[in-house]
């Protein structure tokens, strides 16, 4: 029997989404007596559904028919012959929609061609699968985000600054200094006297010296209000608002991307119930090419199945523990968690001490390079050592394998972001003299002895963190991964073969990216060129990681599922954004800006530039903004959003309930079907017996 022809068979109880009655088309097959309930049925007469719709839906239905090509062409001919009687307006509309559709297809083709790194990503996905490809997709997203942020900053802050610097037509508004504050305006970033030539190299790495008083850092920008004949441009306001819009723009991009990822999860019910069947039927990646990739994928699937079976065994064992054993296990886990917490706090203390030491000692000889980079070194070391120790501890905790992986990841994320937080808290406490008795902060509002221009110093710290991160990636690649692969390939000792090639562990690499991006977000206010530096850095990292992937690595055996991991990466990125947002809000609203440098030198608070320039707007705009900020607008808005939110929540729960209801109904119908089939058999048997008699 031609199994394709089974589609042609209609059935009285065709109840699987399509209905069938293949009257008007050819290719009917004779089939067995019992109608085949399990074969998919479909709608052979598409004009039932498309009577009043546009022609495009006809075409869509045609593409989605599970028929061989000749049949589809026949249906298409039939459709075209049925020219509906339409008015001139409708026929014009139809032809326009057809051209629009063709145009959209061509545009989609061109966009796909232009998309960054499309071929590279295809190759990576083909050889290493979706999990590794998701890391590179995430990296591409960050590169594009950083590039557009740079365009934003360049067009609103950098270019006007350059214009006003070169024309020097702006008024440098003099600040009002009270009696004891002359010392606050002293700022001499350029080194005095002769310098050794290697200091240029050190300056490049630490952002001091010739790099400090440049467009790279906050201190170079003036608080000019460039005024020409009919156009005025307020640079401080532009600087602040650009930083705010940049943050909001990044947030919107992340949320939109999260939304598209989560839509897939919600549509499919979210739960990962049915692990075995899903793994067997959807586990194979049909896009894989190459013998090595296929073998690795097969090993991967086998490993996953074995892990799933192992988890079942562990769960059974855990359920069969006595009360005493359970209590013992939980107290052991609590104790081990305390040890992990202690390790993390120890790392924080090290970072705190290193930052304090590095900020208070600033010379310019070669050893000082190490001292300057000390916070970065300590953070990187902590983020390498502590997760490694936690992994060893986790072996004692006896969790199921999936729980172990998730726990390790959560701990690593917390450590990364919190270590950045500790660094920032240390810096801020030094700037605002909360570690001393406040004597040095009295004249200027900030610690002017240590920091002539504290924003530039913070920018330099972030710049150093970003540089060190980049150098670490390159150094690890050159000094660890290439030699490891050479040793593994050429040496045939059992131990070496057991250790094997480097695994490309996706979550740790993604955490590195998130860390780098968070540093950029924090530093963008103080170092406006940091996004473009980061763009270049991530582009170089893309090519380096790709090279190391193909030459040195094997895919990890323990992989994440690519869709759930996409959401997880974006969630961690969102946490990083929240940390950066807190930092920005605190610096803008709570700390006194430096009096000797920067666009906000005449203000007591960075934010006050906004209310000050508010009064220069037209009165109708002022009234409008007053209204938006007042209670008469915000309370109804809040109430409305609460209503919309509860509506969405109710809708979601209704969908969940209807899904489970339908599932139960399916089960019942299946049982009914079996019962009826049995009855039919019995009846036909009985009638045959009666006929024989």
């Amino acid at each position: 029997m031609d199994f394709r022809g089974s589609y042609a068979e209609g059935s009285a109880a065709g109840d699987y989404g399509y209905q069938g009655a293949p009257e008007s088309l050819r290719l009917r097959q004779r089939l067995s007596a019992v109608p085949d309930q399990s074969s998919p049925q479909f709608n052979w007469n598409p004009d039932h559904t498309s009577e009043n719709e546009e022609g495009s839906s006809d075409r869509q239905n045609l593409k989605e028919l599970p028929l061989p090509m000749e049949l589809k062409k026949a249906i298409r001919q039939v459709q075209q012959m049925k020219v509906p009687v339409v008015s001139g307006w409708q026929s014009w509309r139809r032809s326009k929609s057809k051209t629009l559709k063709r145009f959209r297809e061509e545009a989609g083709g061109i966009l796909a061609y232009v998309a960054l790194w499309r071929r590279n990503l295809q190759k990576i996905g083909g050889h290493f699968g979706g999990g590794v490809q998701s890391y590179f997709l995430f990296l591409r997203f960050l590169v594009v985000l950083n590039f557009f942020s740079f365009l934003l900053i360049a067009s609103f802050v950098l270019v006007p600054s350059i214009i006003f610097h070169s024309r020097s037509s702006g008024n440098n508004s003099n600040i009002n200094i009270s009696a004891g504050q002359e010392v606050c305006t002293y700022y001499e970033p350029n080194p005095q006297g002769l310098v050794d030539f290697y200091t240029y190299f050190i300056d490049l790495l630490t952002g001091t010296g010739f790099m400090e008083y440049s467009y790279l850092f906050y201190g170079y920008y003036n608080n000019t209000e460039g005024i020409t004949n009919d156009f005025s441009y307020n640079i401080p306001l532009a600087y602040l608002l650009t930083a705010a819009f940049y943050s909001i723009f990044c947030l919107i991009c992340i949320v939109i991307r999260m939304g598209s990822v989560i839509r897939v999860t919600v549509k499919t019910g979210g739960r990962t119930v049915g692990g075995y069947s899903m793994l067997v039927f959807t586990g194979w990646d049909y896009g894989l090419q190459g013998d090595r990739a296929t073998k690795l994928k097969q090993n991967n699937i086998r490993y996953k199945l074995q892990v799933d079976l192992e988890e079942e065994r562990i769960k059974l064992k855990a359920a069969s523990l006595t009360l005493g054993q359970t209590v013992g296990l939980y107290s052991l886990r609590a104790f081990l968690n305390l040890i992990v917490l202690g390790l993390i706090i120890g790392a924080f203390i090290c970072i705190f001490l290193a930052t304090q030491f590095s900020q208070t000692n600033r010379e310019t000889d070669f050893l000082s390079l190490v001292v300057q980079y000390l916070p970065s070194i300590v953070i990187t070391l902590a983020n390498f050592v502590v997760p490694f120790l936690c992994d060893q501890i986790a072996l004692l905790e006896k969790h199921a394998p999936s729980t172990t992986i998730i726990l390790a990841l959560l701990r690593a994320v917390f450590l990364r972001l919190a270590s950045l937080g500790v660094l920032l808290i240390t810096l801020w406490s030094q700037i605002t003299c909360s570690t001393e008795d406040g004597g040095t902060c009295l004249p200027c509002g900030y610690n002017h002895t240590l920091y002539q221009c504290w924003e530039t110093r913070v920018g330099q710290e972030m710049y150093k963190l970003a540089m060190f991160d980049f150098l670490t990636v390159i150094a690890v690649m050159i000094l660890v991964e290439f030699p490891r692969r050479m040793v593994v390939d050429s040496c045939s000792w059992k131990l070496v073969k057991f250790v094997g090639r480097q695994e490309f562990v996706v979550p740790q690499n993604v955490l590195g990216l998130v860390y780098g991006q968070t540093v950029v977000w924090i530093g963008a206010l103080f170092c406006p060129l940091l996004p473009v530096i980061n763009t270049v850095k991530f582009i170089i990292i893309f090519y380096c990681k790709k090279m190391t992937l193909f030459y040195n690595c094997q895919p990890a055996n323990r992989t994440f599922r690519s869709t759930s991991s996409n959401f997880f990466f974006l969630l961690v990125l969102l946490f990083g954004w929240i940390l950066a947002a807190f930092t920005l809000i605190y610096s803008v609203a709570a700390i006194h800006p430096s009096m000797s440098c920067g666009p906000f030198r005449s203000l007591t608070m960075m934010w006050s530039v906004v209310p000050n320039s508010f009064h220069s707007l037209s009165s109708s705009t002022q009234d409008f903004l007053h209204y938006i900020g007042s209670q008469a607008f915000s309370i109804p808005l809040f109430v409305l959003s609460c209503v919309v939110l509860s509506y969405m929540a109710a809708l979601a729960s209704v969908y969940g309930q209807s899904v489970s209801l339908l599932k139960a109904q399916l089960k019942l119908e299946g049982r009914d079907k079996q019962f009826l089939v049995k009855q039919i058999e019995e009846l036909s048997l009985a009638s045959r017996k009666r006929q024989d008699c």
Partner: protein
Amino acid sequence: MGNKQTIFTDEQLDAYQDCTFFTRKEILRLHGRYHELAPHLVPMDYTEEPDVKLPLALIVNMPELKENPFRNRIVESFSEDGLGNLSFNDFVDMFSVLSEMAPRELKAIYAFKIYDFNVDNYICKEDLEKTLNKLTREELTAEEVNLVCEKSIEEADLDGDNKLSFADFENMIARAPDFLSTFHIRI
């Protein structure tokens, strides 16, 4: 770009564009791929709709299919005679369903046919065992294979007949978020 080619008439290209998820350029490229599988069998001029079918052995040598453990079943599912001889129409059909724009329902129909080794419109335990062995290169023990098959049927079988009908399969696929991205061959 499409005006100078003489492989297909414009009417044929329109028909292909309406019946598959490919653009004109992609269809011409597919014809190139089909042609290079057997240059002496496949004519360059398809305006007269020649009846040329390539055997299974030639199709599964394509680099996209060469190492796929299900390559034979894929090609058999899309052939009209069930033995794997593909005409150009079947060839285009196959890659259209496996492209990234095909919807979930369409892919589920063909995935069901691929995994149904004995072609009885049900995925029974033997079909599952064969699928599993192809997936893991037969490196699981017999007991593990048995366990996994039993658990899979237990999870997905809704009507209780110890085998998976298309409805069970489609229901299970609907809950798998990865399916669209894994059941996808780029050409």
